[in-house]
């Protein structure tokens, strides 16, 4: 039972709106895009720096260190791309994530109202 009070709080709500607008998926994409952009320009800067250093007859060791750095950055970039492709809200212990996923299933029609309500109740009780 819930007692009513004066103020209206009948809006779509934070949790529902987050699920609907897939904030999490959007964030993952934005992060990925931001990261690649930054990596690209940084990698370019590194390349230019490496070229400049080679031209200046820096020691072979310095060049090697830069190449290692670039390889590491490329690996990071690949990882970021992979992370962005992964499902945005994998099932986990996080109640919010699970609720959001449930809500998405409901919205997509995979769960009908009754199934959604039952699953939500189960999740919250657990």
């Amino acid at each position, binding site marked *: 039972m819930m007692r009513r009070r004066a103020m209206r*709080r009948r*809006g779509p709500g934070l*949790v529902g709106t987050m699920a609907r607008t897939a904030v999490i998926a959007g964030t993952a994409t934005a*992060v990925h895009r931001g990261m690649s952009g930054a990596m690209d320009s940084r990698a370019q800067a590194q390349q230019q720096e490496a070229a400049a250093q080679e031209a200046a007859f820096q020691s072979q060791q310095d060049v090697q260190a830069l190449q290692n750095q670039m390889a590491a950055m490329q690996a990071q970039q690949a990882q970021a791309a992979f992370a962005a492709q992964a499902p945005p809200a994998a099932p986990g212990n996080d109640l919010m994530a699970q609720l959001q996923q449930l809500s998405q299933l409901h919205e997509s029609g995979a769960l009908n109202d009754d199934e959604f309500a039952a699953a939500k109740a189960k999740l919250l009780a657990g």
Partner: protein
Amino acid sequence: MSHGPIELLVVKFPGNKFTGQIVPALTELVDNGTVRIIDLLFVQKDADGDLTIVELTELDEDERAALDPVVADVSGMISDDDALLFANALEPNSSAGLLLFENTWASRFVSAVREADGEVIVSERIPRAVIEELAAVEAED
């Protein structure tokens, strides 16, 4: 309207007392421009598990008087459904404050970054568990 990151905080208290001691700390954060509160409500769960949603205006006079100047807006963005969703996790005889706030400090920093032709490309909150894991790995080395 400024554009700092918005955060929702749910704080659980035993019994039916909400605020008392946290108000001075919150007041300090608001007064020095760290955060701006844009919605606030409280939920009580009694011994039988019944829920009551309590608005700022329904608090005891003392609590209301202390909190009122701190709260910039009671926007109602936190819906009944939100409140009930989080309140479900409460045990009987406890209460929770739901606080929606803007990190105004970050908004000022972002303005400074823009003026310096910088661009924020990633802003992520890292779970505490991740940091603890990394700290443990470093401690091993």
